């Protein structure tokens, strides 16, 4: 299984507050490298919950998670943090940027943390990413002075900066107009095809899902289509 990007086996997740609730029910699936995948389902079906587990941020689950052939279940928090930094790019459902930094600084941060390139190189590729998303003129604005859609695009640019193996987005185009949605879609498509990066995007947009390589659908915590 050389070219598997991600593999999940018998994943179960419970919430215990306010009462015990079985959110994810025995989910198993594999994703190949370079696949562009949509995750769909009704509101409350468990899409975000699943994505947090895939992103290694949530470690309270049963079952196993393997990314790039590395089993991540049971690893220490600090190890997972380093792994996330290098291999996973994440776009949140609500765009989260650091408000006291400029758009450019926000995009650069994960790369500065990774310390694989000089800050000049990082700045250059961050600028490139912003340009890709049509934000070159907003680069030096503080993040909290940007519109919602602009912030979401900065968050996408940030998710791409370390050229991660997997890019995960929780409704990454939720705040964007159809033109920008198309731009983001094209970027993802290109990354998957040209660089072999794997994309997992939660979406409510049927067109978006229809154009992906594959769709996973959740219903009440069960995987009903893959």
């Amino acid at each position: 299984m050389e070219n598997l990007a991600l593999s999940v086996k018998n994943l179960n997740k419970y919430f215990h507050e306010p009462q015990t609730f079985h959110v994810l029910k025995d989910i198993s699936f594999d994703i190949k490298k370079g696949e562009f995948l949509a995750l769909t389902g009704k509101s409350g079906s468990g899409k975000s919950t699943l994505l947090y587990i895939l992103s290694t941020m949530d470690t309270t689950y049963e079952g196993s998670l393997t990314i790039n052939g590395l089993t991540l279940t049971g690893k220490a928090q600090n190890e997972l943090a380093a792994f996330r930094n290098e291999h996973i790019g994440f776009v949140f459902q609500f765009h989260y940027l650091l408000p006291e930094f400029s758009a450019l600084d926000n995009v650069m941060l994960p790369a500065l943390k990774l310390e694989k390139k000089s800050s000049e190189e990082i700045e250059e590729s961050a600028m490139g990413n912003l340009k890709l998303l049509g934000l070159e003129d907003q680069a030096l604005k503080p993040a909290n002075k940007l519109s919602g859609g602009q912030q979401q695009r900065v968050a996408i640019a940030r998710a791409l900066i370390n050229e991660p193996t997997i890019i995960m987005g929780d409704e990454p185009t939720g705040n964007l107009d159809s033109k920008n949605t198309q731009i983001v879609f094209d970027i993802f498509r290109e990354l998957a095809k040209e660089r072999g990066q794997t994309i997992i995007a939660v979406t409510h947009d049927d067109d978006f899902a229809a154009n992906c390589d594959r769709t996973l659908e959740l219903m009440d915590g069960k995987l009903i289509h893959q």
Partner: protein
Amino acid sequence: MIVNKTNYKIANAHLTSRLKQTLVAILSVTFGISMYIFMNSFMTGVNDTQTGLAFSTLAHIRIYNDIPQDNTNLFADHIDENILVNIRNPKVIQYTEGIKNSEKILNLLDSVPEISGITPQLNINVFFRNGATKVNGMLSGIDVVNEDQLFGTAQYVVEGDWMDLNRRSDGILLGSGLAKKLSLHLNDNVVLTTEDGITKNYKVIGIVETTLASVDNSRAYIRIGFARQLISKNMGYVTDIQVNVKDYDRAVSIAQRIGKITPYKVEPWQEANGQLEAANKLRNIIAVAVSLTILIVAGFGIYNIMNMTVNEKIREIAILKAMGFDGKDIIQIFLTQSVIIGILGGVVGIILGYLVSVLVNHIPFKIASLETLPITYRTKDYIMAFVFGLITTFIAGYLPAKKASQVDPVEIIRG
């Protein structure tokens, strides 16, 4: 702690984005550190003045013949304790008073490196008479040069000249209160009578005023040689040898060592004036207690502000963690902030502490020999204040930083 450049950048952004809170935190450290410096400088100043005043008559170590000792059982150590002894009305028939051969001891003391000054004294209880007025007092036969070197007595001479004692064999210096009681002025005559009934006439060649009642109201000084003549004693006879050491806090241990090589009583000032040492120690305890309390309060201030910062930035902490910053990075980011606050507050606090000290040192306070409130400037206090300040900010900053590092990003991001 080597701070990662990126973490430092984030810490710096946090500090500058809430300038007001940062400033308040810095000020609380500044206040704590400056108060620490001021309290300690002031208390040390008071202690130094107090001991300085006391040491204007009291030497660090006094050597004298401590007689008679317990002579109620003259057979002790001589007869087996199983033998019953009955002594009635014991009397000491003869004992040696004073120190006969002071030369030997003085030579011995000269070889002790910790000693900074030695002066022999011959103190005699006498009656001073002027006409019908008769006052009981103490005549000190002193070595003119060494006495002044130890006690700085010459600076307290308000009329006449201390050095004249060396020139006139019938010259006497009187305490100002004593002179007043006897209605005596410079160049008047005073009659002196010893316990053994010897009477001699002296000329008042100076008045001494130390502000210490025990000296001013009952002391008179003559040269030690003339005092020996008065009571017909040999060269080398003294009642006391007064010794000053370089570090008066070490008087006890030095006295112990000297005590082993002389047959006489060697008494450090702490033994003779327990209350003086107790007062010094108590003042030091107060200074340390008050200043540490202030520092701890400042620490609580920082703790509070850093806690607020962590709560305010909790979403950003979650984002940082989601991007792959680990617990150590988060601790670094927040600890860096408190350390910067600590260093800035410390530097300003040192300056402010010095300024407050200087200011207080200029407040008039004309009591006893004081002109202004006393302050002692010691580098040690400044270093200690800075170190304690840093330790406090470090601890106060560590707890919120630790809390920040334990934030669960999913819980925050999920909303």
